[in-house]
């Protein structure tokens, strides 16, 4: 059995009552945090402390707590999902921090992701981009065709699968210095454009999704590559390039 170890930390957390009121950074001291606990469990511990002190607990997004739902966000010490790569915040553990560390916890910052409360942001802009074209139209009234009737090259299937690994968490937007959503949109465009089923509507899809992305107020990609580094699912910049190709071809048609 590994001996468990406890650390004391100082937290600087963004507190904001609601979407309309101005927020500010509040400082909290939290003792006896197990280094085996996840970052979210640490926040649970803080909230128990706050409740026992009759203070308002910190609101933060979370759901599956196993790195697949994309709900947990948090900009921790200047990085999306904290000081590690290829993980969501629920997969970040307190062993990444040292005793007496000061940890900044902020919500995703983007015009398109307004803060609802404390660390919770509204990411429905992603939903609207998805609804603008991130699907394959299917007529369910006819005969269902066997999935294997349409051959897909292994290489394309793999690339599409990698793009489809995007969980829409918004870390790419949060970490991008321009608040650009192009890694997200690039992944969504790619996962369909690579497959024969998706190619049918590829032209309209990319035009509509990019238009919606621009309308939501996301910034422009300047190819810094920060999104690729911070993406918990390792979505590659290749997907942005593919979207650029698809869009160029679509707008010339």
């Amino acid at each position, binding site marked *: 059995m590994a001996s468990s170890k406890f650390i004391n930390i100082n937290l*600087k957390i*963004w507190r904001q009552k609601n979407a309309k009121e101005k927020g500010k*950074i509040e400082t909290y001291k939290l003792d006896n945090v197990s280094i085996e606990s996840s970052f979210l469990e640490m926040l649970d511990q803080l909230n128990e402390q706050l409740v026992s002190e009759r203070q308002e607990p910190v609101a933060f997004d979370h759901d599956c707590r196993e790195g697949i739902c994309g709900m947990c966000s948090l*900009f921790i*010490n*200047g*990085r999306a999902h904290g*000081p590690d790569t290829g993980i969501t915040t629920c997969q970040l553990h307190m062993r990444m921090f040292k005793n007496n560390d000061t940890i*900044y916890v*902020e919500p995703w*910052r*983007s*015009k*398109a992701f307004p803060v609802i409360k404390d660390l919770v942001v509204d990411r429905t802009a992603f939903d609207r981009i998805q609804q603008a074209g991130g699907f394959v139209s299917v007529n369910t009234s006819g005969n269902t065709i066997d999935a294997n009737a349409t051959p897909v090259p292994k290489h394309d299937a793999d690339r599409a699968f990698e793009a489809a690994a995007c969980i829409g968490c918004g870390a790419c937007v949060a*970490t991008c*210095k*321009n*608040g*650009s959503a*192009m890694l997200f949109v690039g992944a969504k465009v790619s996962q369909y454009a690579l497959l024969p089923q998706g190619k049918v509507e590829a032209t309209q899809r990319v*035009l509509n999704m*990019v*238009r919606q*992305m*621009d309308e939501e*107020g*996301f*910034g*422009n*990609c*300047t*190819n*810094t*590559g*920060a999104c690729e*580094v*911070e993406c918990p699912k390792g979505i590659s*910049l*290749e997907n*942005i*390039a*593919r*979207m*650029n*190709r*698809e*869009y*160029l071809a*679509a*707008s*010339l*048609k």
Partner: protein
Amino acid sequence: MAKSAILKSSLAKKYWMALTGLFLCLFLVGHLAGNLQLIFSDASHFNQYALFMTTNPAVKLLSYLTYISILFHAVDGIMLTVQNRKARPIRYAMENPSANSAWASRNMAVLGTLILVFIVTHMVNFWAVMHFDEKMPLETVQVDYEGKTYDFYVTQNTGKDKYIPVDLENSGLEIRNRTEFYDKTGNLKIAEGYKDLHKITFAFFKDAKYGLIATILYVIAMFVLSFHLLHGFASAFQSLGANNPKYNGLIKGFGKAFSVIVPLLFAIIPIYIHFFAK
């Protein structure tokens, strides 16, 4: 739909940024090849080249394309930067950008602004003098003959170089439009004088008072250009959708070599003129 997409969308701005940027990379190569004559050629050849560059119609067309590209690249860049700033109205209290991106890639707007300032001063110092300065000197060659030194203008007439004495009063010639030699009696244009760009360039960087500071500022500008290219070159390919694991290494490698070698060669020229040239 498609028309507005190619002109106004976020991606269209990236395409234009990439295309103008890559065109300006080509311009850099041409400009560098011309400038290197300041080291590897003589004044006459350099001035002939300068005349060719300001009069040849094909070169003129390219130069207008270059001016438009610089303006478009700058205006597009400013528009993108303003939009990108708006996309994050509230900044983070704590940021650690060096953990996931290169310094140059995050500072393209600052680097670009500095380059624009450099281009403007550079054009005031050389381009404007070449084009508009009434007092722009014509190239002279000194010839020793029977113990006396004579100054001659190097001129060009029907492809052949001629030497016309400076003593215009008694020569039966006069200069019109700054560079054209006319026969006074016949009222015929008989030759074209070379503006001495070589002379003003050397004088600029060898100036006793400002030559050193001009050289230093020029070298700093080339450092700035180098960092701008270090991100910009490969970035342009990504923006245009050229991202293929097969060629990425080549594009990035070539881009890095380009962004070091081109500004370095540019920077060597004023250093050579200031410290080593006679």
